[in-house]
């Protein structure tokens, strides 16, 4: 049976991890390569690097981080943040990334999904979306925001469900669903949003934004029907280790790789 993936996400700028505490077995918690290797040893199923600089200098640094990580970490690696062209994607894939994640650039130019998928295969192209609940809508609806890195982001008027379905038609092989309402709150993923997207698309859906407890990860899978859960703070701040999370999920009947 296919296991549910547990994915730590590392925000990187200038070649350094932004969040992160000092672990006992880790000399430098700010080094993305060392942190990726550490999570790999803990049993992470994939690693996501998210480039929050997204300047061209930053991307060169990111390429170097990806290369050094791919030399020693033999699990899948996804890179996102600031990738705007097929050439940007190619450079990350050549550096050793298995998948590239695009967000704002895909909203501005949906053909980027298709061009990436035609060139590298759908399995390489991850659409990441930032969605916010539209108040007082029944049934529930969510709106896509872009440029969420800075100052709350820009509303697009685009419906999250419609965008997810369209992105898959265009060639996205996986969708990361990030809830703007839940992100950073540590009060749980938006499971209604997750379920709405997951039931509507044929590709795997990754839950993102809001994880605070192991129960939250469980609910993302059970109620949200997510195929994978991505989390940052709970791992970086040492609230739980990946192994603890996996043991917990396994004890509640969720298939995980132990």
């Amino acid at each position, binding site marked *: 049976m*296919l296991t549910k993936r547990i994915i730590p996400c590392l925000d990187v700028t200038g070649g350094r991890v932004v969040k992160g505490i000092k672990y006992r077995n880790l000399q430098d918690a700010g080094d993305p390569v060392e942190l990726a290797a550490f999570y790999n040893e803990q049993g992470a199923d994939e690693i996501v690097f998210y480039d929050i600089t997204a300047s061209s200098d930053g991307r060169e640094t990111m390429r170097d981080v990806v290369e050094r990580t791919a030399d020693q970490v*033999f699990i899948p690696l996804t890179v996102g943040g600031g990738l705007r062209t097929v050439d940007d994607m190619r450079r990350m894939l050549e550096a050793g990334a298995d998948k590239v994640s695009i967000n704002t650039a895909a909203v501005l130019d949906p053909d980027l999904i298709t061009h990436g998928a035609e060139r590298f295969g759908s399995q390489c192209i991850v659409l990441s979306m930032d969605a916010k609940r539209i108040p007082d809508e029944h049934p529930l609806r969510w709106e896509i925001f872009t440029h969420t890195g800075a100052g709350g982001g820009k509303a697009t008027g685009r419906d999250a469900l419609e965008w997810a379905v369209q992105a898959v038609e265009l060639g996205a092989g*996986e969708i990361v669903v990030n809830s703007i309402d839940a992100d950073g709150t540590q009060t749980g993923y938006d499971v209604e949003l997750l379920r709405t997207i997951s039931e509507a698309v044929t590709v795997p859906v990754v839950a993102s934004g809001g994880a605070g407890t192991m129960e939250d990860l469980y609910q993302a899978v059970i109620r949200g029907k997510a195929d994978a859960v991505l989390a940052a703070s709970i791992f970086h701040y040492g609230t739980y280790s990946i192994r603890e999370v996996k043991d917990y999920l396994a004890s509640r009947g969720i298939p995980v790789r132990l």
Partner: protein
Amino acid sequence: MAMAPVPDIQKDGATSVVTIIDYGAGNLRSVVNAIARLGYQSKITNQADDVLAAQALILPGVGAAGDTMANLKQRQLTKPIIQYIWDGRPFLGICIGLQMLLTGTEEGGWHDCLNVIPGKVKRLPDGQKIPHMGWNQVKQVLPHPVFNGIPDETNFYFVHSYYAEIDDESSVIGITDYGTNFCSAIAQGNLVATQFHPERSGEHGLRIYDNFLKLALKEELGRKTGEVI
């Protein structure tokens, strides 16, 4: 007093170079890294002569099967690969590199493949998420040295939407359940192929490469000295 690691095989006086076929699509870096970690050198090539001269040949794969076949044909690599395999020499196919071995694939309309293993490549059944992406168990239905040191039902990393339906089940050594029990590992003589990505499957994945390369280079050494293995 650190010294550069010396690959084991050098002790036998042979050059242990693993030949990896580059057909212009797949990302080869992760395969090269995995092999380097095990202490072997790789040679990346798109030349027929290199394929025919290989001691151990790897056909990696990412992307669409039809494109892969077209790329191999364009580089005039299909005949050398088929000859190499028919000569019974050590070959490892990964993902699309497994699917390429079959008679043909249904991906993107029917495309003929290398036809060294009779069977066809079909789309995974509907009713679950496609691509099949993530870690899933490989049930070792037949013992094989490529599984040495790897427990039965170990999780390996998969990314694919199509699977191989093999006519002769005696060459199927591993199966995986995803809507159907599909063939996830094949072995036939010195040929081994996996639907999963050992280079992305952590320590157990590296073990697959290590097992294959140990077998492959031993076989080659034996062949050169006229021994029968």
